[in-house]
């Protein structure tokens, strides 16, 4: 049981519970879908650990390959909603989504399902950074004021940016960072734990902000 209680799984499960409480009755489909996304993520993470512990070779890459299309779909769906006031930028999401699916299919054809699709994962992070930066730029350029401290969309994007920036640079210098050891673990281990913690903390806050806004609108 202790194997399943890692920092990642705890952060993901807490985030899922908060998503369930805050977004289950949300009127916007993209936000409601975040509950499903978090459920899939938690299930994927636990399955990944289970497979690693119980399979002969400990290869759990296929589990994360299964998660990738879900990540592509739900992240694009959320950005599609967030960019609703800036409709002319939506074509970019359709283009990005198509490019990622084609790339993922290409990876599967070349490296197979049992090896993690690193290219698609890296490309998703780069696209994520671009979407996030464009969203922030549009927010700065927009005349309509929104208190960003309580903006669910803003914090959801912030979490994505933290994770995508960090994972991109970690993947880029993976060999060098992996070679550095601290307290019995590689540096990348700490970086990814930290990034996951930041991602799920900001997302949890974003879900809370969303719920709070919905309650405020209802009262």
């Amino acid at each position, binding site marked *: 049981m202790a194997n399943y209680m890692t920092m990642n799984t705890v952060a993901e499960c807490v985030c899922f519970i908060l998503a369930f409480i805050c977004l289950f009755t949300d009127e916007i489909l993209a936000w409601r879908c975040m509950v499903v996304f978090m459920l899939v993520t938690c299930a994927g993470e636990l399955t990944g650990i289970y497979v690693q512990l119980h399979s002969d070779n400990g290869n759990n890459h296929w589990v994360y390959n299964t998660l990738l299309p879900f990540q592509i779909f739900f992240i694009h769906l959320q950005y599609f909603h967030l960019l609703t006031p800036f409709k002319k930028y939506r074509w970019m999401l359709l283009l990005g989504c198509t490019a990622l699916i084609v790339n993922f299919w290409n990876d599967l054809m070349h490296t197979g399902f049992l090896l993690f699709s690193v290219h698609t994962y890296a490309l998703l992070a780069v696209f994520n950074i671009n979407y996030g*930066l464009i969203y*922030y730029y549009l*927010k*700065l350029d927009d*005349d309509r*004021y*929104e*208190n*960003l*401290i309580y903006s669910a969309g*803003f914090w959801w994007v*912030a979490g994505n*940016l*933290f994770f995508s*920036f*960090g994972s*991109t*640079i*970690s993947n880029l*210098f993976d060999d*060098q*960072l992996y*070679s*550095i050891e601290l307290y019995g673990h590689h540096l990348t281990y700490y*970086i990814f734990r*930290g990034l996951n913690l930041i991602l799920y903390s900001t997302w949890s806050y974003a879900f809370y902000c969303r719920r709070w806004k919905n309650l405020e609108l209802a009262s």
Partner: protein
Amino acid sequence: MEKPGISFLILLTTVIFLIAPAFLVVYVIVYSRKKKKLQDEKAEMQLVYEAELLNSQLAMQEQTMQTIGADLHDHIGQLLSLTSLTLGSIEIRDDHRSAEKVNSAIEITSKCIAELRHLGKLIQGQQITEEGLYSALQQEIAWLEKTDRFRIRLSFDEVLNSVTSEEKNLIIYRLIQELVNNIVKHAAAKEIEISLTYNEGRLHLSVSDDGKGFDPEKPGKKGMGMFNIHKRIRLLNGQVKINSSPDEGTKVSITIPYP
């Protein structure tokens, strides 16, 4: 074996990339707050401006009421009193003299009607500007010259009869009324010169007098009249220049984008 310098650079780049989103998030929040502050200030300035505009409109209304009151008292009231006196002195037995007095009373009543029409036109600036700015100014001058206190010269660029803006004409007309009113009230002038010229999309208006003038640099209480003038010029996106010195008259030059 990797050089220690390269490892340090890689670590530094990694750290920069890891904390870059934090700076980005803080920057967006701070910028957004500044934007909100600016918007609030703009809205507040708009409110103050509207309040000032309302004040100046009220002042104009008050001024118009005073003009009507003075005209009713000085012109129409006197004419009606004279009519009353004339009609009161009619003796029915003296047919010849009675007919003369009735004719005289009719004449004074006609004058009175003409005066009322004139006053009505002065109040309804829109009607006047529909007839053209030049015609409106001539009527204003004719009205002022009745007092025999001023000699007024009007110089009007003919191009302004073809290049015209009804909306701006009304504001320009009120502006000239305000400037002339200031001269009448404070300048103790004998001659007033009004000039309107047009050049490359700009109307140049100048109103000068040979009155007692003032020192524009000297700090003092600015009256509602000058306040209204500046307001109107702001409404028209124009510029104003005031040249004056004690005992040497005043010249107000205004440039307005036109039509």
